């Protein structure tokens, strides 16, 4: 069988790749994609612990479903904000968006 | 082991399993080999039917609708026309336009075909004859359909052509919009059968769900027509507006694959409708003779396919703003209402121990009447608004489709 640690290492790797993307990409849409990667790692982790921990208790899956809803809401609103900023400032580079600086 | 004629498909599987096990192979390996063989047969049979026979059938039926003869040169009744077309397409030069994103450009038609072939995995042909009895079958259908949407976007983007991209965006906007009422009404068979598995849904249909939920069936049919991009929703190929849609730069067999995917998809719609609303393989005597069930299934599927063609050759194309309005302002609210009322009424009927079918029929009749009343009121309001205002410009909507680009 597949050891639990394999899954955990994979999700850790996915999460770290996403983290790198969030910290280093300039494009706001790319940052959002990296956040989706991180969220996916989290969901995968939830399901892994559900399966290896307490497969009889369904709460792990409910939790994962709620995270799906959160991820989708975040993507919808986040992308709308990015589009709106793009229309105003003609840029999607996160480090150029500094209206809240002071 | 003797052959059980009451359960031929189960018996064949068992015979093959025993044969392979006898060769000294492991149990999982045997299961894998059988899965591959079954999948190969399924994909081969359905793709050949779609690519060769259905295209001929559709052209023939279309010709009759338009009082023509249709293909009649190659083979008896022109039956081999599809083969001739395939050979022609294979021999055509395959052009990849300059500036195209080659990898994405080549993957897109493959994904288009795959997304339709994948749908057949969960279609039950007869008792015991189903590729994979997934207990999430209904959602699986929706999920695989999403891959088709992706292939459209990939094709349109990678072609490096304004019209392709415009067509793709339009198509995708339409596909995803119509997915909503489709997914919502799929809740109705799920609710009535208490399962998302296709086999369970067929088993649950002692009374066809078409009779228990005719409005849901109609909504499903309309939205799946739009998913295929068939007339009256063929804005994908609206020649007069956007040249030929997202596959404009494709030629040769790659274009052929998009075409096969489209024809195959409309046939698949027939099969899905049969399974979800027409009782699948069920019919008199099909319980005892599974082969009869297969015949029923194929007959019903081809009947639904005929209805798809009938609609195609009867209705004119609808404008894109009308399509979107139909979806968001009519089908989606209607689907929401259907789901809510079906859930409540069915529960009430069960608690009062009323007969299920008449209650559902009454509910549907009431829904239809209310819908007609609502549409009347809407039309009146619209007319009042239009009469109060000056005439709208005729070119406004056609120009609006392209936008300020």
């Amino acid at each position, binding site marked *: 069988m597949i050891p639990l640690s394999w899954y955990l290492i994979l999700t850790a790797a996915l999460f770290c790749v996403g983290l790198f993307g969030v910290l280093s990409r300039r494009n706001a849409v790319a940052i959002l994609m990296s956040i989706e990667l991180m969220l996916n790692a989290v969901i995968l982790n939830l399901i892994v612990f559900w399966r290896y921990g307490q497969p009889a208790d369904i709460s792990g899956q409910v939790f994962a479903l709620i995270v799906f809803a959160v991820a989708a809401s975040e993507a919808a609103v986040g992308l709308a904000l990015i589009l709106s900023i793009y229309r105003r400032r003609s840029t999607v580079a996160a480090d150029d968006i500094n209206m809240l600086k002071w | 082991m003797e052959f059980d004629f009451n359960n031929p498909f189960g018996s064949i599987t068992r015979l093959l399993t025993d044969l392979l096990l006898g060769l000294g192979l492991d149990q999982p390996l045997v299961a894998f080999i059988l899965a591959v063989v079954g999948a190969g047969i399924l994909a081969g049979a359905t793709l050949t039917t779609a690519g060769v026979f259905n295209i001929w059938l559709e052209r023939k039926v279309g010709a009759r609708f338009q009082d023509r003869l249709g293909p009649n040169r190659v083979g008896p009744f022109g039956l081999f026309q599809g083969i001739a077309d395939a050979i022609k397409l294979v021999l055509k030069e395959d052009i990849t336009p300059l500036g195209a994103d080659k990898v994405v450009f080549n993957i897109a038609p493959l994904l288009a075909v795959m997304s339709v072939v994948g749908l057949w995995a969960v279609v039950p042909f007869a008792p015991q004859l189903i590729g994979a009895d997934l207990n999430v079958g209904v959602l699986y259908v929706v999920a695989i359909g999403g891959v088709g949407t992706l292939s459209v976007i990939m094709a349109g983007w990678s072609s490096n052509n304004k019209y392709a991209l415009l067509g793709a965006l339009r198509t995708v906007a339409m596909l995803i919009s119509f997915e909503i009422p489709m*997914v919502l009404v799929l809740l109705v068979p799920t609710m009535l059968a208490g399962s998302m598995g296709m086999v369970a849904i067929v088993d649950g249909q002692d009374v066809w769900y078409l009779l228990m939920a005719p409005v849901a069936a109609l909504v499903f049919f309309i939205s799946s027509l739009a998913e295929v991009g068939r007339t009256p929703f063929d804005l994908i190929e609206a020649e007069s507006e956007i040249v030929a849609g997202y596959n404009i730069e494709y030629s040769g067999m790659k274009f052929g694959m998009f075409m096969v995917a489209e024809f195959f998809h409309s046939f698949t719609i027939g099969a899905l409708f049969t399974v979800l609303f027409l009782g699948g393989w069920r019919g008199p005597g099909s319980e005892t003779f599974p082969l009869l069930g297969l015949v029923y299934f194929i007959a019903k599927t081809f009947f639904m396919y005929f209805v798809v063609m009938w609609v195609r050759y009867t209705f004119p194309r609808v404008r894109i703003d009308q399509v979107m309005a139909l979806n968001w302002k009519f089908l989606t609210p209607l689907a929401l209402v259907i789901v809510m009322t079906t859930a409540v009424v069915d529960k009430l009927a069960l608690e009062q121990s009323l007969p299920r079918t008449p209650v559902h029929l009454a509910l549907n009749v009431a829904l239809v009447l209310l819908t007609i009343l609502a549409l009347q009121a809407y039309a009146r309001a619209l007319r009042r608004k239009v009469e109060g205002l000056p005439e709208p410009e005729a070119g406004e909507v056609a120009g609006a489709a392209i936008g300020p680009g």
Partner: protein
Amino acid sequence: MLDQWMFVAALLPIGLVMAASPILAGLLLAPRKPNAVKLSTYECGVETVGETWVQFKVQYYIYALIFVIFDIEAVFLFPWAVAYNQLQLYMVLEGVLFILILGGGLLYAWRKGALEWL
């Protein structure tokens, strides 16, 4: 459960291969004589002006947005529909409440004109 999915895992690649094989056959059999005109972008014979990336309308995004929200709603309702036979009336009504709340969202989008194809 997993042997059911094995069939899906077999069918999807086979679908890909079946689509790829005629295209590959075409590569072998079809003529290949590209020239600049053939490879240029097809726009009914009119010269291509500007880049492909014209600005698209926000309306496309808004449809996708509403689609995402309602897609999730439907997906949330599927387990509810599967368990339907075991539910009591008040549980069914909770599902209806869920739909009604999001129906309010559709109404908002309608009133704000977000559903119009401009």
